[in-house]
């Protein structure tokens, strides 16, 4: 009898033995796509994202506790490539100047704008407003500082005046070791005789050590507002300045248009100041607002932003891309729309992918799935174009959206990581004033999948 069943028993024993040594298929797996949330109880929002000097990622943002009487602070998150929070630093301008009798700011709302990696540290710039400040005025002011690799402040400065306001757009360290800040102000600098209603482009060069002001300039067009949102130092030490203006575009586009200007290294004048805009189906009245830009190794500037029509009946909104050579030559300008049925959307940041094409993030306004007809609130946008900014049929499948079914989510920053995957920093809205900073790592097809 035993012999009769010996095969069966042997089979069971083999199965059991196999179960003891079986190598499960989960094994070590690369954690290469994911989503992470960061923040405190309250609102947390993304402003910018860069690669740190140690090869990690830095997300710059703002946070405001839900506690009564809280104010908005600047926050820096350093995360590793798998999303683990390594360092967190917060800055409150009021606290930073609490011991400085020359300022004595009251409670401030601080809004981070840019962080830039420099040798052995970082530059940070932000706007802040004092909630109740009779001494320093209630208008926006600029705070900027140099940080070491641990985000400790080495030097800090403010640009403040009780009678004027300043808004910062960008900050760089030029090759001569000094700081260039661009933005906007309602204070006209000496020699600026243009007629403006309010806001004009502001450029200033200062010493990083003692805030010596080498020069400060304002530029703009008569009767319209202007804003400098970005600055790059070209190889000939001239400054390329990206911004927006209310002036009509070179081809007669109405509304707010995008500008690319080249200034001398002393900010004395702009040899080139091109104004670009979009029209859609004969409608030229679009506001073309710059979201962000990248400065390529070939000294091209690729600008991404959002074109929103001023048509009150059916306002449409689409992302746009420009590529401009350092001499001001326009390589392409593209409105990222493939059909009139496209959802309203906007571009916030752009990156050059490992395949040398362009990937932008931003927002889908009131996203609706074209197949399921499921509707969402605003969703994070992922859109890929060829290197000329065209969404050809090959690139249509790479469009994707991320976010909660409710809440207004927005992608604010995007980077291409060394392994070719795409990092997106987004603000996720859980409702009831609870927003979180989110870090999504997706593949180059915009999917959370290896």
């Amino acid at each position: 009898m035993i012999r009769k069943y010996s095969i069966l028993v042997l089979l069971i024993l083999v199965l059991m033995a196999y179960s003891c040594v079986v190598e499960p298929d989960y094994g070590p797996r690369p954690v290469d796509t994911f989503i992470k949330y960061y923040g405190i109880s309250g609102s947390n929002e993304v402003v910018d994202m860069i690669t740190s000097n140690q090869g990690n990622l830095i997300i710059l943002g703002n946070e405001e506790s839900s506690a009564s009487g809280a104010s908005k602070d600047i926050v820096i998150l350093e995360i590793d490539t798998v999303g683990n929070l390594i360092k967190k630093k917060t800055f409150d301008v009021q606290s930073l100047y609490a011991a400085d009798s020359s300022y004595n700011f009251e409670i401030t709302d601080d809004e981070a704008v840019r962080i830039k990696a420099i040798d052995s540290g970082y530059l940070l710039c932000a706007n802040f407003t004092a909630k109740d400040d009779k001494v320093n005025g209630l208008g926006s002011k600029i705070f900027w500082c140099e940080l070491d690799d641990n985000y400790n402040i080495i030097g800090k400065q403010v640009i403040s005046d009780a009678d004027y306001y300043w808004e910062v757009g960008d900050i760089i360290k030029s090759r001569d070791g000094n700081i260039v800040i661009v933005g906007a102000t309602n204070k006209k600098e000496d020699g600026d005789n243009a007629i403006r209603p309010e806001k004009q482009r502001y450029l200033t060069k200062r010493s990083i050590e003692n805030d010596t002001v080498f020069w400060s300039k304002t530029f703009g067009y008569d009767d319209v507002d202007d804003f400098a949102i970005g600055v790059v130092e070209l190889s000939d030490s001239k400054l390329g300045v990206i911004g927006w203006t209310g002036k009509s575009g070179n081809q007669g586009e109405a509304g707010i248009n995008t500008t690319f200007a080249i200034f001398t290294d002393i900010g004395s004048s702009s040899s080139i100041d091109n104004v670009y805009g979009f029209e859609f189906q004969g409608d030229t009245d679009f506001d073309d607002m710059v979201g962000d830009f990248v400065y390529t190794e070939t000294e091209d500037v690729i600008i991404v932003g959002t074109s929103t029509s001023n048509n009150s009946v059916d306002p449409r909104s689409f992302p746009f891309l420009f590529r401009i050579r350092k001499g001001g030559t326009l390589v392409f300008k593209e409105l990222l729309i493939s059909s009139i049925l496209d959802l309203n959307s906007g571009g916030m940041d752009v990156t050059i992918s490992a395949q040398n094409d362009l990937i932008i993030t931003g927002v889908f306004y009131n996203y609706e799935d074209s197949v399921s007809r499921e509707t969402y609130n605003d969703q994070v946008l992922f859109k890929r174009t060829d290197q000329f900014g065209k969404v050809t049929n090959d690139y249509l499948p790479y469009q994707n959206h991320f976010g909660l079914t409710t809440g207004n989510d927005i992608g604010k920053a995007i980077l291409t990581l060394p392994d070719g995957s795409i990092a997106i920093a987004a603000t996720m809205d859980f409702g009831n004033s609870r927003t979180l900073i989110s870090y999504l790592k997706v593949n180059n097809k915009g999917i959370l999948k290896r």
Partner: protein
Amino acid sequence: MGTFEIRLVAAFFLLFSTFFVSAQTWTQKLLIAERDYDAGRLVNIVDNISGGFEKSLGEKGYTSEEKIRALKLITKVYIFIDNEPKSDEYMIKLLRADKEHNLDPKVDPAELYDLYRKFRSQPIFRIGLRVGVNKSYPNIINTFGTGNTGIVSKIYNGVGEPPNEASINGGSGTGFFINAMAERYLDWGLEVGLGLEFRNSQYSVDNYITYGDSLQVNEINEIVQFAVLSTMVTHQQSFVRVPLLLRYNFNYDSDNSFVPYIAVGASYDYLLNAKYLEGNRTGGTEYKFDSDLSLKGLDLIAKNNFSVFACLGLKMRVKTHFLTLEAKFNKALLNYINPNNRWSNNPLSTYDLAFVEDDLSLDMLSFSFGYTYSIYNPQKLKEFK
């Protein structure tokens, strides 16, 4: 006494004597036959008692006990008159009438023992039906999360310490199962079984997005984690399983009313369905969860799995059948989650609940109550044919 009275008494005598004879016929005949057998008068025994098996007699025929005695007697008679085919035939009838019939060494002759051993008296297999409850023990293999997984862990089935300003909402992770198994006794107390099982189980996960802040504990400032967003999901899954087991019965003998046993086995598990039974969020606005979301449809869960198990149980004999009580621990060998789709196909939980699945094997502790029905087919063993 007059003539009439004499006739009346005679009529009553005749009536009662007829009744008496007819009421005791088969019982008496069996007793007489047994006395004849004891006295060595074998010739007419079979003829005298065979009529009692007629089904048409109903209650007038043999009782169950008498039927067994009669069959056994006929078998012995045929043994001793050397009619082997008939002795075999009635041994089979005996074993059908009295499953696993026990011979009595004080009464039964060695020849009957010799014949008995040539027949299959044990059940050809048994059918067991068990129902029970299970409790899941998710065994975490790799941790993934939308929070800082290096600092704050998820809480499974409500067991763990939540961060500050958060609570545990998860349940205990209990489910149920029903199992049918065909079992066959081998020898030496060993049995093998192959079955089919439907298992419904649950596990709950509390997930936390936190931030670190200082808190004074015993006058010492410590960095502790505060919850920013807390979410909970209850994960429900149903499997159809094909378990194969090897069981060892202690003191496996028909004389023992209680038979403790241990068993080990392996099972193929096929996922029928998986979904989030409930999900909620603390932080932000109230969240409406879509409980119709099929995780199997999203290919988030591995459809095929294998598991091993070990059991400890007790059988309680009911005639030739058993009532069973069993405790079983089941360990899944493969990842419950399909890691390829961990992030890609689950928009509701990943974004709205800020939740993502860990790699885990879904282990179970279960308790069951069951009934095992024995099925017999007595036959002469091949080697004696």
